[in-house]
């Protein structure tokens, strides 16, 4: 897992075949591209896990089933 020095956030959406500069192509990958039967759009996100911080990239989970759950906010009610 990439190190997280607590300063720089992760890259966010990552386009297919992308290697380096994601931020430049941000506009291109900001369109909705998730649909059932299609590839899950890849991304890298900052994360809290097992007591520490790390970056998580969705494509690191290829070969396993993944449940990806979005929710409106920490400390809310439901």
């Amino acid at each position, binding site marked *: 897992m990439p190190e997280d020095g607590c300063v720089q*956030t992760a890259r966010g*959406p990552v386009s297919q075949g992308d290697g380096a500069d994601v931020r430049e192509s941000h506009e291109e990958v900001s369109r909705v591209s*998730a649909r059932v039967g299609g590839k899950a759009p890849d991304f890298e*996100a900052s*994360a809290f896990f097992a007591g520490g911080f790390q970056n998580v990239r969705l494509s690191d989970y290829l*070969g396993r089933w*993944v*449940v990806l759950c*979005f929710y409106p906010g920490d400390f809310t009610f439901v």
Partner: protein
Amino acid sequence: MLSVSTDSRFVHKIWQAEELERMIPGGVPFPMLSDQSGAIGQIYGVYDPAAGVDLRGRFLIDPDGVIQAMEVLTPPVGRNVEELIRQLQAFQHVRATGDVTPSGWRPGETALHPSPGLAGQVWQVWKPKQGKA
């Protein structure tokens, strides 16, 4: 299991310490991801720019990275974890066997082998569950 919200990873840390560990021994055992710009929620179609939050979207992704199921709820209603697990078991059965699973299927129940001969004959091998709509 990966959870995502627009909170920072620092807020996730404090939420785990202050509240989640009081609900679940040891806290939640999966990575809590941060989507502060909403850019990830945006490409998954769950970001609400007016509220600045990700809606309650759930995506079931198979080992090939293909989305097999999705569900999106507005914030006030929580999810049903039992239905998520049922869907996961059904998709895993389909992937392993090539069968298809009828409505409400659970492991151990009859799944169907699609064939030309079965068309129009499903009623002979599968019936809706009694007492359920």
